[in-house]
């Protein structure tokens, strides 16, 4: 009974699909597998054959891998020839797959290639591209918000979603790992997230850094991220005062611009915050305090969400030379004009942990 439950655990977790797995067998070198055939009077007893487990160990057909590569626009990059889809399979194989593979191939054989190292390289590259692009696009963004925005663009949740949108879910080969004292549990989304990271690393290896940046730009940095909701304050009036002092403007003054329904059950107040004669923020609310809070938030958002137009964005990694090859080769640098430094962020709530 114990052996049965382990095999069921392996079979249900190795390939997570809504319906029971049905694989095509035309690409397999040997079918039906030897261990599934009945041998009369076998002397050495063998474990009972589980077709679901066997199915989850087989690689996906090469046609699905080449279709995947073409779908994401990397047909020419990854599949040098029609038959060469090994690198795509490697990108879709999580290191946890080796556990289940070695369990069922104790004699060894050709160990499948995994995407552990590729995912690590790709993760670093994606972090680099996202950070420099966000800093160049939003120069006034506070550091804690920049970090959160980088996570939103290229973090584990987005990577897993992108992998699903690419259609890589049936191609993923992995094995669910239980939580140990040294490592957290491995989830399906973590395994899926390794696929786009490996693809980024492969684009860098097979083409160049600018090509990898283009890949990340088109699939990750063009996604919709709500940065406004990440900029939160416990006391926006205090933050605004500090910012005004830093920018050496006149002290902020809030003025009631419009109101309606005072003392009724649905009042609306419109408050504007002024620095001298210039209105720097406006907010509405059902109470005077709420409207003033929102006005202060609006003033801070107008500063923090200042965006550089995309044609004027200058990023440091654009200095790497164009053309095939890695970043270490000797070639003429590309042009780069450093943007002017803006004032540093205010100290209030600048720690990553505190919001008050």
């Amino acid at each position: 009974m114990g052996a049965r439950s382990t095999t069921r655990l392996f079979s249900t977790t190795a390939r997570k699909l809504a319906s029971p797995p049905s694989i095509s067998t035309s690409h397999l070198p040997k079918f039906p597998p030897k261990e599934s055939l009945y041998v009369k009077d076998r002397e050495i007893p063998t474990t009972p054959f589980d077709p679901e487990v066997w199915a989850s160990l087989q690689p996906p057909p090469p046609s699905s891998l080449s279709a995947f590569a073409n779908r994401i626009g990397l047909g020419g990059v990854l599949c040098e020839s029609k038959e060469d889809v090994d690198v795509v399979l490697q990108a879709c194989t999580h290191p946890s797959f080796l556990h289940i593979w070695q369990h069922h191939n104790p004699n060894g054989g050709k160990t499948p290639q995994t995407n552990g190292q590729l995912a690590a390289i790709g993760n670093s590259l994606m972090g680099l591209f996202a950070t420099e692009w966000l800093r160049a696009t939003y120069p006034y963004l506070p550091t804690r918000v920049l970090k959160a925005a980088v996570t939103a663009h290229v973090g584990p949740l987005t990577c897993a979603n992108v992998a699903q949108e690419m259609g890589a879910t049936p191609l993923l080969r992995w094995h669910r790992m239980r939580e140990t004292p040294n490592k957290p549990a491995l989830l399906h989304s973590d395994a899926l997230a390794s696929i786009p990271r490996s693809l980024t690393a492969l684009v860098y290896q097979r083409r160049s850094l600018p090509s990898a940046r283009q890949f990340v730009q088109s699939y990750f940095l063009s996604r919709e991220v709500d940065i406004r909701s990440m900029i939160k304050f416990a006391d926006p009036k205090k933050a605004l005062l500090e910012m005004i002092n830093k920018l050496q403007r006149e002290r902020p003054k809030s003025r009631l611009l419009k109101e309606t329904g005072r003392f009724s059950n649905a009042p609306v107040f419109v408050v504007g915050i002024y620095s001298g004669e210039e209105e720097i923020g406006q907010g509405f609310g059902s109470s005077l305090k709420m409207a003033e809070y929102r006005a202060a938030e609006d003033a801070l958002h107008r500063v923090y969400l200042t965006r550089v137009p995309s044609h004027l964005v200058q990023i440091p990694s654009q200095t790497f030379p164009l053309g095939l090859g890695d970043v270490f080769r000797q070639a003429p640098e590309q042009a780069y004009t450093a943007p002017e430094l803006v004032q540093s962020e205010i100290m209030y709530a600048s720690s990553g942990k505190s919001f008050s």
Partner: protein
Amino acid sequence: MPRLPPVQALWRHKLGSSPANGHSSFLPQIRKLVVEYCDVWPSSHNTRTFLLNHAQTLAANNPHAEVVVRQRPFKEPILRAFYANNRDKVIGLNGLEVTQIEKKAQLLLDSSGAKIKALKKPVESSTPAARGIYSNLHAQRPSL
């Protein structure tokens, strides 16, 4: 000054983004197109003709979709398409001519796999109104 309520911290595992397919690059949503036919029954005759004459060019022209041919013995022929949102669409090919089968295949290749829902609003958008929402507090007062 009364203490303001604490602000919710940003949880890393919840920080995500919304897809914007087509803004920068386009991901076709179809993964696989399966043509299931029967070798014996006459209802699959047109499907067999389609497979012999048009299936290969269809697969070559759509490298992003995996085209699979499958036997469906003693049943009516169908086209089944699998999409990136883990849904599949099935079209029966019984009674269709070869040109109609081609059109159905193209329909499946163009589809996104999303469930067909009735549109209740005239405009659906993820961005706020381009012209702005009317505010009578900000409207121009009539002047005499």
